[in-house]
């Protein structure tokens, strides 16, 4: 079948048909005459991607709000069922694309739990390091875009400027600024390159001062406070009912952080605080994110120190489980490590066989099911991974915090003003790639 676009059959599309029906008045069964139903998004600069909100307004006051999602659904979960376990990393990393390392971490820890293997200590430290720096970049995006939407354009410029310094480190570590596929089942794909300590030192030296600058710029800024304080309030009880986790929950006074409550990757050995506030409004969420960046830098500093005293492999050495193929970053980008190629092609027939089997067949994972949660910048990110014993996942479910937290939007905005939708959504900080998957 080959159909040219102009010949495609097109049925008349009624934009109100599917969802606006909910807005009928239950008493009369008709739309109310004194209110207005408007559509915000999916193409809107302040909805952080393709989020659509259907709003019923009485003047400037929001009576009802219905979030509509799915515009960025890409079938990541279905795709993983058709690829090997290692290839799955490249899919899940694209879900919440602002915090890709957390997707990789949760998925890889799930695969490792199914395999029943422990990753080397150095790999665990590198994982903590990249995740905490990723938390900083993610919070920077949240504060930068939130600032832009409220007119604080300088905050956007500063936030993205600092984020770029960290992304530059990620690029030299992994070859890519985002969607790294760096954490793999069994460890990480390669050790830190030569220039990494210098770049890391630079980040850890300048970031704390820059965070002070953001606070000087925004904390007592009358417009920032006016737009954020007392706006989009969500109580602790309502957060728990709605499954909201991460900064919105901690800003309401609940000190839940999986790094403390259910430690993984050795987080129990790092010294850091769980940041909470009590107000539960958009301003409190901003302050929680600012302080969490400091805590993340504290953890990164400790991980950096440990890296110096923890040599060793960064991938499981069992060639039947761990991906042994070495990559390195050369002048033309990332590629096969010349030394490793020499080893398998010239020196060791056994290594060549292991490499061949791993690349063509991949590893077979014992059947079973696991759910592995990690504390992502937006809250609890969990992967429910099922294996039927073959060399590809049977099911990968991504419990994305953005997806769950977004359910709270009607609670945040109903009864408020239209203009307050913007700080409300910015304070939830949804990433639609994670919401729609």
């Amino acid at each position, binding site marked *: 079948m080959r159909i040219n676009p102009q010949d495609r059959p097109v049925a008349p599309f009624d934009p109100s048909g599917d969802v606006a029906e909910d807005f009928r008045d239950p008493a009369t069964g008709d739309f109310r005459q004194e209110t207005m139903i408007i559509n915000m998004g999916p193409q809107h600069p302040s909805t952080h991607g393709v989020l659509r909100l259907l709003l019923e307004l009485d003047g400037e006051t929001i009576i009802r709000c219905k979030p509509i999602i799915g515009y960025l659904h890409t079938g990541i979960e*279905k795709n993983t*069922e058709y690829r090997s376990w290692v290839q799955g990393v490249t899919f899940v990393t694209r879900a919440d694309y602002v915090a890709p390392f957390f997707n990789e971490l949760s998925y890889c820890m799930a695969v490792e739990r199914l395999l029943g293997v422990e990753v080397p200590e150095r790999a665990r430290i590198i994982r903590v390091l990249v995740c905490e720096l990723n938390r900083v970049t993610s919070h920077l995006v949240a504060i930068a875009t939130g600032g832009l939407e409220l007119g604080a354009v300088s905050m956007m410029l500063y936030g993205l400027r600092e984020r770029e310094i960290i992304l530059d480190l990620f690029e030299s570590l992994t070859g890519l600024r985002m969607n790294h596929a760096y954490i793999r089942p069994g460890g990480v794909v390669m050790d830190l390159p030569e220039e990494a300590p210098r770049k890391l030192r630079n980040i850890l030296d300048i970031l704390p001062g820059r965070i002070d600058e953001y606070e000087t710029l925004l904390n007592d800024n009358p417009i920032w406070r006016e737009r954020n304080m007392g706006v989009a309030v969500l109580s602790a009880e309502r957060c728990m009912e709605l499954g909201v986790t991460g900064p919105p929950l901690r800003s309401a006074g609940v000190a839940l952080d999986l790094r403390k409550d259910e430690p993984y990757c050795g987080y129990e050995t790092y010294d850091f605080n769980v940041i909470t506030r009590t107000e539960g409004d958009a301003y409190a969420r901003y302050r929680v994110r600012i302080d969490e960046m400091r805590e993340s830098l504290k953890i990164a500093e400790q991980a950096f120190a440990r890296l110096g005293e923890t040599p060793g492999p960064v991938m499981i050495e069992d060639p039947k489980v761990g991906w042994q193929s070495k990559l390195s970053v050369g002048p033309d980008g990332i590629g096969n490590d010349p030394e490793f190629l020499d080893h398998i092609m010239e020196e060791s027939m056994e290594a060549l066989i292991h490499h061949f089997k791993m690349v063509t067949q991949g590893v077979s994972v014992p059947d079973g099911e696991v759910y592995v949660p990690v504390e992502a910048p937006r809250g609890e990110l969990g992967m429910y991974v099922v294996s039927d014993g073959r060399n590809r996942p049977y099911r990968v479910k991504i419990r994305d915090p953005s997806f769950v937290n977004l359910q709270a939007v009607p609670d945040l905005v109903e009864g408020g003003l239209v203009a307050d939708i913007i700080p409300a959504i910015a304070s939830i900080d949804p990433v639609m790639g994670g919401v729609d998957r």
Partner: protein
Amino acid sequence: MTLAELATAVSTRYPDVVVAREEATLVVAPDDLLAVLTWLRDAPGVQLDALMSVTATHWPDRDPSFWVVYELRSTALAQRLRVKVGIRDDGQHVASVTGMFPTANWHERETFDLYGIVFDGHPDLTRIMLPADWSGHPLRKDEPLGGVPTWYHGALMPPIDERGMA
């Protein structure tokens, strides 16, 4: 409290609890779901008060062919339990847990959208990821990954390799 202690506490009332790979799983009959979740939430020493995720898996050659999976978390005890409900592929429904856990609303809509499992008592069981006029439930194992013509809001979209250039 350790996971073993939680499993013991649960097994005094519901013996079908299995601990494997540092995780506990409880298999429940569809009709008992709400009663079990209520007990798990309220029983002292169990206190599984938060629902983190609802999803499903499809096993076309087995009976039951669907497992609906609930991930519960005890915020007080820092422990987790998975509750699984088996559903036959003959239109069998399962009760919605939105009354107990409002967070289940979107989770159940997603499971309905992608697997076609009907949750009785859900306030708004409509598609959430896919357009309202989509047919089929793509995460079922008998649905292809791609390569099929699709309707989107009344417009026909041929598979990507068959799209003509205008």
